[in-house]
């Protein structure tokens, strides 16, 4: 055991090991783990002294809340900016959008989080520094609970949105610009359509495809990448759980968190594949 109380006697150690099954050969341990896995038993956390699975799932739901809200915003806002930038390509607005997008996705998420806390919590005192809820906030009414939740959500969501929307802006813009080189765009303009009409009717549909693909891939990836934001904002999600478990050397918890994260990513990707088969009849498995 790599992390233990030096006051424990050898006998205590042996007892602990027996209790956690660590005295068995490695492959036996692994086999037992798998068996337990199938029974939905991910072991018991060292630190919390509770079964791992419920802890992990609770945290997962918090993460999904945070990521879900952010996702909707960064996809929509990112694509919207990309489309407008392409429409006005060559203008100052376009140059600004591209530079802005490039910058925001070059910013490390944890640092952005720190900046937000610095500005909005420490200096301006507008948002709370950490956590998901203030204790006792839900006591008066659901409205108060909601406001409290939203004020805690605000900064992490904004951080995630700022970071991830850059990809969409750049991608949507370049796909649209690519479409603009198509001859049927000239035809449409010749027919007397305004630029915006042409964009809407003839180019948007095709141009949105790469962005949608990215959105699909992102569903899985964001769950993994949100660790930084969660930790800095102390948002009780599965990312910060992974980190905390790591610090505490709480291996069952760490394994559980890791496993569930990977499974979520797999599940999300799988769901997207299924949806694609339905959307695009050419794809068949």
């Amino acid at each position, binding site marked *: 055991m790599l992390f233990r109380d030096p006051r424990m006697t050898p006998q205590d150690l042996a007892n602990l090991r027996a209790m956690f099954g660590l005295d068995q050969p490695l492959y036996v341990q692994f086999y037992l783990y798998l068996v337990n896995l199938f029974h939905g038993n991910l072991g018991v956390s060292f630190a919390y002294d509770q079964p791992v699975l419920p802890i992990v799932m609770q945290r997962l739901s918090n993460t999904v809340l945070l990521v879900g809200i952010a996702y909707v915003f960064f996809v929509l806002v990112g694509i919207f900016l990309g489309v407008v930038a392409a429409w006005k390509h060559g203008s100052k607005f376009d140059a600004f959008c591209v530079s802005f997008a490039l910058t925001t996705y070059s910013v490390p998420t944890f640092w952005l989080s720190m900046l937000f806390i610095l500005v909005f919590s420490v200096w301006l005192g507008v948002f709370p520094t950490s956590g998901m809820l203030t204790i006792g906030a839900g006591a008066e009414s659901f409205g108060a609970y909601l406001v409290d939740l939203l004020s805690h959500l605000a900064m992490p969501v904004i951080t995630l949105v700022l970071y991830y929307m850059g990809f969409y802006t750049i991608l949507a813009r370049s796909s649209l610009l690519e479409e603009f080189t198509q001859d*049927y765009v000239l*035809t449409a303009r*010749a*027919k*007397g359509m305004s630029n915006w009409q042409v964009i809407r009717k003839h180019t948007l549909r095709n141009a949105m495809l790469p962005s949608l693909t990215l959105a699909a891939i992102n569903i899985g990836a964001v769950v993994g990448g949100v660790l930084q934001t969660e930790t800095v904002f102390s948002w009780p999600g599965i990312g910060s759980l992974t980190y905390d478990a790591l610090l505490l050397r709480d291996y069952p918890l760490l394994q559980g968190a890791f496993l569930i994260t990977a499974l979520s990513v797999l599940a999300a990707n799988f769901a997207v594949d299924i949806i694609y088969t339905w959307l695009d009849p050419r794809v068949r498995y």
Partner: protein
Amino acid sequence: MGYTSNSGCVKAVDGISLEVAEGEVFGLAGESGCGKTTAMLSIMQLLPPAGRILGGRIMFGDRDLVGLSDAALRNIRWKSISMVFQGAMNALNPVHNVGSQIAEAIMLHEKSTRRDAFRRARDLLELVGLDPSRGGEYPHQFSGGMKQRAIIAMALACNPRLVIADEPVTALDVIVQDQILKLMKQLQEKLHLSMILISHDLSVIAQTCDRVAIMYAGKIVEQADIISLFEKPLHPYTQALVKAFPSVRTSRKLTVIPGAPPDLTSLPPGCRFHPRCPVKVDRCMREEPLLIRAEAGHYAACHLLQAEPSSGKA
């Protein structure tokens, strides 16, 4: 209708002047890159964002199209002047069916219900020799010739007065070429349209046009009615072009014009054609020839046509 313009910062078209009479088929011929497409796109101001009209007037009837507002231009596009593009281009959007693309033009300029617009689209398809029930099909389901017919149908959707056809038969095989050209001529006469036909292929021009202008490196070098041009070409470039035709009856050697058109960013001094001209003289290398009237209705820009420097443009 008259048209004088320059366009683009590298002057793709440098000071040309054309006039198309009502009901006439006017041909614009020249090698690739001589500026004919740019000239035509300028008429409806469809140049890409990098292109600009630098000066001149575009008279349609009695309106100058240069300087019109965007909204006014959009009104004129397709309703008064429409274009027939090369079928091989992606001129038709592959994800919309053919009928809807024709109907789209109609609904843009007239208060028409979708059903009416589609009905008219079907009528137009029939007019160009296509099966009207195929309006629901997609462009990739049409053959090259069929696509070209569909594009012609689309161009006629709003009953324009002028149709500009840019290389309409270039990508088609000769038999289909002939069919399409005959169709276009038929429709033009029947509907009393004015037409500008652009092509690098003089035989196409010969088959359909009443008058021709030959362009080279952004300028018009000769302009005449079709018969005079072919019987008595005045400009060395035109002469070479006409001579370049293989003759079925006699066994004449194929002649080729040596060299290549000049790079518009580094034009030769004087006459733009002189590096490739077989009969150039000293003056050609110093002074640019102006388009002058050699005979009635026949203009050419060559120093060799004048005994002494003369004035005046046509």
